[in-house]
């Protein structure tokens, strides 16, 4: 048993036992342990990647949703605006139509009134003519009696007939 001189016995046992230990550990311990560690690390990496991808997908989806919402809102507004414009136009149209009708009716009424007026005037003129003739007949009858008197009567009646 020396300090720096190795003993053959310990050398022999160490060599055989260490090789045996190496083989056993490699097969039954390190193999499964390292494999499990690798698998776990890969699993963790995979999960992280998937989470990242899911996050990205969610972000994309949210973006899409907001986009759609925005588009919808814009469309709605546009639609409302268009409808309002249409409505205003329609109203305007109706108004002008109604106005035109009213005007035309008013015109027609005016025309009628004018016609009636004219007819009435014509009748009146005829009546006046007839009346004048009658008066004249009477005057003439009276003239024959009183010339000056008859003259003033004619003059008066004519004054009374002074209508446009």
């Amino acid at each position, binding site marked *: *048993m*020396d*300090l*720096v*001189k*190795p*003993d*053959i*016995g*310990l*050398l*022999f*046992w*160490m*060599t055989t*036992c*260490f090789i*045996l*230990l*190496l083989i*056993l*550990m*490699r097969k*039954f*311990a*390190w*193999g*499964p*342990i*390292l494999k*499990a*560690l690798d*698998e*776990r690390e890969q*699993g963790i990496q995979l999960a992280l990647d998937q989470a990242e991808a899911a996050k990205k997908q969610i972000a994309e989806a949210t973006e899409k949703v907001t986009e759609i919402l925005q588009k919808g809102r814009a469309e709605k507004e546009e639609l409302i605006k268009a409808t309002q414009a249409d409505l205003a136009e329609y109203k305007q149209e109706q108004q002008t139509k109604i106005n035109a009708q009213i005007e035309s009716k008013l015109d027609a009424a005016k025309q009628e009134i004018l016609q009636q007026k004219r007819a009435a005037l014509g009748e009146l003129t005829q009546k006046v003519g007839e009346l004048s003739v009658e008066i004249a007949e009477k005057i003439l009858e009276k003239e024959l009696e009183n010339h000056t008197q008859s003259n003033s009567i004619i003059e008066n009646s004519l004054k009374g007939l002074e209508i446009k």
Partner: protein
Amino acid sequence: MLRLVFGLFLLSTILHSSPEFGDPSNESHNNKKFEPGKMIMHHILDSHEWHVFDWKGKAFSIPLPIIIYHETKGLSTFMSSKFNHGHDTHKGYMMDHGNIVCVNEMGEVDQNETSKIWDFSITKNVFSLFFSIIILLSIFLTISKKYNVRANRAPSGLQSFLEPIIIFIRDDIAKSAIGEKDYQRYLPFLLTVFFFIFLNNLLGLVPLFPGGANLTGNIAVPMVMSAMVFIITTLSGKKYYWKHIFAMPGVPKPVLLILTPIEIFGVLLKPLVLMIRLFANITAGHIIILSFLSMIFIFGEMHPAAGYGVSVFSGMFVLFMLTLELLVAFLQAYVFTLLAAMYFGSAVEEH
């Protein structure tokens, strides 16, 4: 826990250090002076029996099996208790200062016959080797089973203590020193070497049976491991590695005449240094601790009061050293593994 270990260590060392180790109670021996060198060497060297303690001058030791092959007498196996601590002869063999020697009929040591002995005994260190291997296998086989049973789940218990170390060796030693491509081939060896050295360094610090054997501080153990490192490095050496040894590129021919022998020497020197580093560090640690403890008895022989006085300081120093040795136990295992990985890395390097 450390205090307990320390206490046990102190106790066992006090008991161990009775000067007449291996001798049964003997009046003349009781007056013998305390020899620290002898006590320390006895602790550091291998032995055929496991001395546990002395009680009233009588040594209590666990007998270990002796297996010897003699070139003419053949194989013989018996327990070391047959030698009666070096006092009796058995089958023509005798124990002389821890070595088994052949004796003739007159009871004298026969040097010629002794040289024919091949001692394959289960010594203290061999027993410790078996013990540590059993511990390693039971720990790691249990853990490896856990990885199957609890697949894809968080580690628990011992598994969660050892897993960071395994990952550390894989990522920071093997992967960084050998490279992503080849590290997996060498990983089982590196892991085994690391845990073997680490466990045995720690067991060497435990003062009582079945710890306390100076296994990693025995030159045979680092020798076998560094020889394996050398063989693996040499076998896995690629073109780039050999080219840098025999014909360093970019060096003029006359310089190569000097450089190549140095490089070849370096190839042998690397594992040699690996062996000596581990052996010397662990042995030195044991020697320092035992030296401090010896001081108690050296002073105690002068005067009992001096012994008690010194024991306070010695005890503190031993406590400090034991704590340091815990660090060294890890550090040396790490350094051995790292350097082995770097040698493998240089062998498989490609450009």
